[in-house]
């Protein structure tokens, strides 16, 4: 898009502020190579962090640095390989796969991408891999030191994974979204180390800042995915990071053919869809009722909403496609908290012919983007709250995946849960945040922000 096209589409002040922070961070990162030094960049959901990583790789290469880029998961590494290769056609991007992993075609078919064993990657200018794979190769001596290390999704990467790659370079840039789900473990007492400097489950950013408190932290004040209606709500997840939407209000539009059902359940769904079109949000609140994790009533309503959305011929237009076009099912996702919710919804949507609509838990939706999200509130129908359901990161992921609209389903009792006695949460020396308390606060402010969009039967 040329600058002329973008007038009236993007907010120039927001774009300029973001560009300035990103450039300063990258300059800071590549300005010195003589000492151990880190740079942290935190950003809200959909801020274009990957773009910043790609630009930082370019800047580091112009300084003739050899660069390694690490991510927590393989999928993140694949998409980075492609982005870097496309944006820097003059560079060869070297992917180091774990055994039984190989690049998908969309990345491997690029002429400047190679896939090699770690021992053959020495000397390469840009090396990409998962943190575990790069760290394993480094500690075995297969992969030698490089000049600069970039870690993407560094709030998802735990300290133990970061440990593996820490010695790979003297310069580190850690980029991530502080609102996402924290690292977790399946063991019975993951809090065993909480508050201690050796805690393997603190984030990569956490351990770096703990040991090196003078590390500069840059905050990207922009979200490109969310529009201004969504950003207002999303702000609750980032108490110490102010940001604004890149697109101007009204640029993103979702349109449905007008319809109103003549039975109560259908009317509720239609009102929710109309509200979502108009305001970008709808928070459907069912009456208080004790319910199972896989609440049949919510399954029925979510499936009904997805189906009705498809029936009403949804069309969208936005900054990248200014003419109306059909919204395909694959751009719609249902976000849940539990696997049994996912399994039952998947089977219901398949039986209704909506196999292309994505259904996933919040953990799996991290980093993904859709046009419309139908979300199952983490607190919906719970008899009591706990740390898992209160974790602000879970709600954050569910409410920040959409470009156009988000429809949230819960029960009236969800807000009452927050007014009741909070669960006891132990205190840990040296560990300031209280995830249970802060999760509660965040949930509360999200309910307040969604109040204008609340619908009841």
């Amino acid at each position, binding site marked *: 898009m040329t600058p002329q096209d973008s007038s009236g589409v993007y907010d120039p002040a927001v774009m300029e502020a973001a560009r300035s922070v990103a450039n300063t961070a990258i300059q800071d990162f590549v300005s010195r190579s003589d000492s151990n030094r880190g740079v942290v960049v935190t950003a809200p959901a959909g801020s274009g962090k990957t773009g910043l990583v790609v630009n930082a790789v370019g800047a580091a290469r112009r300084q003739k640095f050899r660069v390694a880029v690490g991510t927590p998961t393989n999928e993140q590494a694949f998409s980075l390989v492609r982005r870097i290769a496309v944006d820097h056609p003059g560079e060869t991007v070297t992917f180091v796969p774990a055994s039984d992993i190989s690049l998908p075609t969309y990345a491997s078919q690029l002429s400047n991408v190679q896939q090699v064993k770690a021992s053959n990657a020495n000397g390469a200018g840009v090396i990409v891999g998962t943190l575990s794979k790069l760290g394993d190769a480094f500690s075995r001596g297969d992969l030698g030191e490089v000049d600069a290390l970039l870690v993407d999704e560094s709030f998802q990467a735990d300290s133990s994974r970061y440990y593996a790659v820490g010695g790979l370079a003297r310069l580190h840039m850690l980029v991530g979204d502080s609102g996402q789900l924290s690292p977790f473990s399946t063991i019975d007492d993951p809090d065993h180390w909480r508050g201690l400097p*050796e805690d393997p489950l603190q984030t990569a950013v956490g351990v770096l800042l703990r040991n090196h408190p003078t590390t500069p932290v840059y905050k990207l004040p922009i979200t490109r995915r969310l529009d201004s209606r969504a950003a207002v709500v999303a702000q609750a997840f980032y108490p110490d990071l102010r940001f604004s939407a890149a697109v101007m209000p009204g640029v993103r539009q979702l349109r449905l053919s007008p319809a109103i059902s003549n039975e109560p359940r259908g009317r509720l769904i239609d009102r929710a869809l109309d509200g979502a079109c108009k305001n970008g949000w709808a928070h459907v609140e069912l009456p208080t009722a004790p319910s199972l994790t896989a609440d049949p009533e919510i399954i029925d309503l979510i499936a009904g909403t997805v189906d009705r959305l498809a029936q009403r011929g949804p069309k969208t237009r936005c900054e990248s496609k200014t003419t109306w076009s059909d919204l395909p099912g694959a751009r719609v996702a249902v976000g849940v908290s539990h696997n049994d919710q996912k399994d039952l919804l998947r089977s219901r949507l398949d039986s209704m012919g909506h196999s292309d609509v994505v259904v996933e838990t919040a953990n799996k939706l991290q980093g993904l983007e859709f046009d419309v999200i139908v979300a199952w509130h983490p607190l919906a129908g719970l008899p009591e709250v706990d740390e898992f359901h209160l974790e602000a990161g879970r709600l954050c992921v569910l409410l920040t995946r959409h470009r156009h609209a988000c429809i949230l389903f819960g029960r009236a009792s969800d807000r009452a849960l927050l007014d009741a006695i909070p669960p006891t949460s132990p205190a840990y020396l040296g560990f300031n945040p209280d995830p249970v308390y802060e999760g509660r606060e965040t949930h509360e402010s999200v309910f307040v922000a969604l109040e204008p969009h609340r619908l009841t039967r």
Partner: protein
Amino acid sequence: MNQLDAALAARSFRAGRGVRSASLRHRRLAPNPLALVFWQLGGEPFSAAAIGYGHKRQNLRMVVAGDPRNRDLAFAALLKFAGWFNQRFEVAAGYREWIQEEGTEVSSNAPQVIVANEASVEMIGRLGRRLAYLPTDGPKAAPPELIRLGQHFLFLHRHSRVAGQQLVVPLTDFLSQHWVTPQSAFEQQSLGAFNSYIAPPAGSSGFHAAAESERDSLGPVPSGDDDQKLEPLVDRFNLRRGQATDAVTVTPLLIPIENHYRPLIQHTWTQVWDCRDREASWLEAPSVERRWQSDRKAYTQHIDWTAKNGRTRTRQTARQAAVRLRTLEDAKARLQAEEACDDPVKMIPYILQNKAVQGRVVRIEADRRERINGRMLRRPLVTLLSPDACLVPRGKELWWTGSPDGRSYLIHDVQPDPSGGCLVTLKLTTGSTATPLPAAKSQACFSVHTTTKAWFANLPPTEPWSHRPPVGEPPPAPIEGENPL
């Protein structure tokens, strides 16, 4: 609580007794375990007021400290206990065998400590922490046996966190892995109450039997009544001994306190052995042996390390913590997989959570081939008739419980069956004919569980700059020794 446990709890409530949640015994119960019973003072958790111990029901021994708040008296009692414990705990390390898959020599046997409840394991941890780091020289030098006891206790406490380990078995936890009652997890930490609900005396219901048994404390934390009875005895003991802590003066004065603890310890002792003997009669699950071997390996490493005066840090390095986390995660995943693959009852929750599918094998296409990278390769299909609807998504990777350490299968197709169930077709992900397939017409189960050892990423031996402050933190002041408070 999973769906199976919820259903069994309801069933147990109706039946008025415990209901099994396992058809096998998933932990080793060694023939001559080191049974330990602890008692502390209500307000002094870091000292043992009384210890009952023995390796057979018939030979209960006991030691009491008199006043465990006095360091010399507490250590004298522990020293007597250490003389018995250390020798029995270490003896197994003298006999070794070569284990091929571990690539090392491992003790052929290992000691097993049994205690009433999780609180006793915590007591072991606290005593270990207090004793293991005592000074061996200077004015307050501690006897080496006491330090060794502390090291063994610290090891046991640390090892107790490994899922499925069997070196220290708290019986309440053992029971909760095999039985369901409607009691809460907190109520089940009373071995007496849990035991009574599982097997109430003839003619009474589990609920009432448990309510009755719950009155008695089984240690290490005493009931308020017990400590009130103890208090005048300790006061008189202190008055009569004056400042003396030597055995000749103190031993005869201990008799009233021993008489106080004897029935308490005896009561716990009976509960512990009744429970242990009843549970030992259940058939042991096949995978217990693999976990016992890994326990033996941990035990051998601990004994060898202490034998060469190796020390254990009170705080882990970042690297140790990272390795520990992966080890604990792996142990838990393998335990869940082994239990579910060993025992059809343990598999039920996973079937209900759509993590497993089971049914009768109705079709096997052993020689089916498909084109992969331009070559026709063998990819056998197995079709099950499942009595339930199958919500496991297509493409999901599952392992046959008949060979959970073998190659995986993928869900290839799911079709409804007129009978109300569904036909689930699975595709084996290898062409090797050495991989076994389930037999036609047999019952088969495929689940997310694999017992293949997980891949462990190596960690660099030296701490990276990101994980240490530029200037190291000063070491903490000693807790005990030259600088008493």
